[in-house]
């Protein structure tokens, strides 16, 4: 797969290790899904190869839908490795806590628009957290890590996707989670037709009520 040198461990995630490397003169990210000792090897290999194949497909589809994603350079299923463009920028996880309220809400609105574009094209990200969003130096917001994503237009999947975004905001940005999510929804609504938006929002409420011990169910 050409000379890669020298890989530098950038992040040891739960699911994969990200290495920063140089590949044909480019700065790339090498995403390697390492075997998980706790899972049976049979199941482990299945999960890893499935995600290694599907992630680049979804990343590519997302780009076609108008959502900035890293360019895929190489997929090595045997080693569960993907080589892709390195996005230089700042994670929204940090950014949201650093910027002014106005900028924060603007960012959330943009995020909502991007999620809307994904959903419009039948792409569900599957892990919408602010650590999977990077603002590059030119201000574009990139979505990364589509490992848990899928191609579907099912209402349930769209609802869960947004519900996860809400939950991620609540657990990592609880101080301003509510207004952030509200702006995400505004952005989302500007991309999709009103009927779909209403259905998805209803679905989110239904999913939340289904959740255990939700205060809302008391009524």
């Amino acid at each position, binding site marked *: 797969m050409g000379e890669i040198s020298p890989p530098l461990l950038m992040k*040891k*995630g*739960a*699911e994969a290790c990200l290495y920063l490397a140089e590949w044909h003169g480019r700065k790339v990210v090498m995403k390697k899904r390492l075997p*998980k*000792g*706790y*899972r*049976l090897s*049979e*199941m482990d290999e*299945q*999960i890893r190869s499935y995600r290694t194949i599907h992630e680049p497909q979804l990343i590519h589809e997302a780009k076609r839908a108008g959502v900035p994603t890293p360019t895929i350079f190489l997929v090595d299923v045997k080693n569960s490795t993907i080589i892709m463009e390195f996005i230089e920028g700042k994670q929204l996880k940090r950014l949201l806590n650093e910027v002014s309220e106005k900028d924060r809400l603007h960012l959330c609105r943009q995020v909502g628009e991007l999620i809307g574009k994904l959903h419009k094209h039948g792409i569900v990200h*599957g*892990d*919408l*957290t602010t*650590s999977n969003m990077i603002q590059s130096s030119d201000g574009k917001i990139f979505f990364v890590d589509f490992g*848990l994503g899928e191609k579907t237009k099912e209402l349930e999947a769209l609802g*869960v996707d947004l519900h*996860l975004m809400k*939950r*991620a905001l*609540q*657990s990592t940005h*609880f101080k301003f989670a509510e207004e952030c999510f509200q702006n995400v929804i505004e952005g989302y609504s500007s991309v999709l037709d009103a009927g779909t938006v209403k259905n998805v929002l209803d679905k989110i409420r239904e*999913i939340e009520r*289904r*959740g*255990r*011990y*939700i*205060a809302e*169910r*008391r009524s």
Partner: protein
Amino acid sequence: MTRRKPMEGCCLGIESTADDFSVGIATFNGEILANIISAYMPPEGGIHPREAARHHAENASKVLEEAFKKAGIKPKDLSVIAFSQGPGLGPCLRTGATVARALASYLGVQLVGVNHCVAHIEIGKLKNDAEDPVTLYVSGGNTMVAAFDAGRYRVFGETLDIALGNCLDVFAREAGLRQKPGEPFGAIVEKLARNGRRLIPLPYTVKGMDMSFSGLLTASINMLKKGDLKLEDLCYSLQETAFSMVVEVTERALAHTEKKEVLLTGGVAANRRLQEMVRSIAEEHDARFCTVPKEFAVDNGAMIAWAGVLAFTHGVTTPIDESFVKLRWRLEEVEVPWVK
């Protein structure tokens, strides 16, 4: 048995969220003096809330008496009464709450309503000398991954539908298995799984940090009904799939929070295979693996007593007129001023 000095401070805790009625007594120093559990076992089917509540009412005085005897203290030695205020089954919670209110007003001591999930985490921390773990709490009623952040325990991931323990229980019942005192469904499934060899593909559903077990349960039951697969292999596959899901989410919470302890608790924590899997991710992230002995992992009064001590010694009490039970009291709604 030695009589304890009353000045030391003791809290009696009553647990009655589901099928167990339990009374525990803890000192303010974190010594557990008693932990008596009376389990309601339905003759068949799942827990019927009213029947379970009847069991609690019938056994309350006996369990209380036993707890005092075990602890070697008298009711007047108590400084505070704690009870599980939620989440849980209404009739069961109300029975425990009634006993707690009666005791507190009779003795003229303060009452503390404790969140059941907080209590599970706190007893796990106490028993392991842990400070700040990522907790995987898996039982018949709950499945969540939680960790402390800014004043509260935050839920990082949880089930979107049924609990992991519930999934195993229903599967076991559908397979015609029978649980016995001391051998709940989980233990029976675990034993069968140990003799399973073949991994049958089942739905593996992780959505972000959340999980879903209902599809897995339906698929397993459908496979079971086809009748051409060995029960051992099905138990094995069900366990491996369900456990891999919760462990994947736990690992992600661990990687995200970078905490240095992992606590496994709840009734399903007794499963050796699950323990092995959680230990494996703990080691991989240089975190310490913690779990609790069964009597403190299942629903128990000692954890309510200990959480009551923590709350009471940090100025948190529950006036009688605010002591109504909260069936859907979420973990992150509770402020925990005793955690820094």
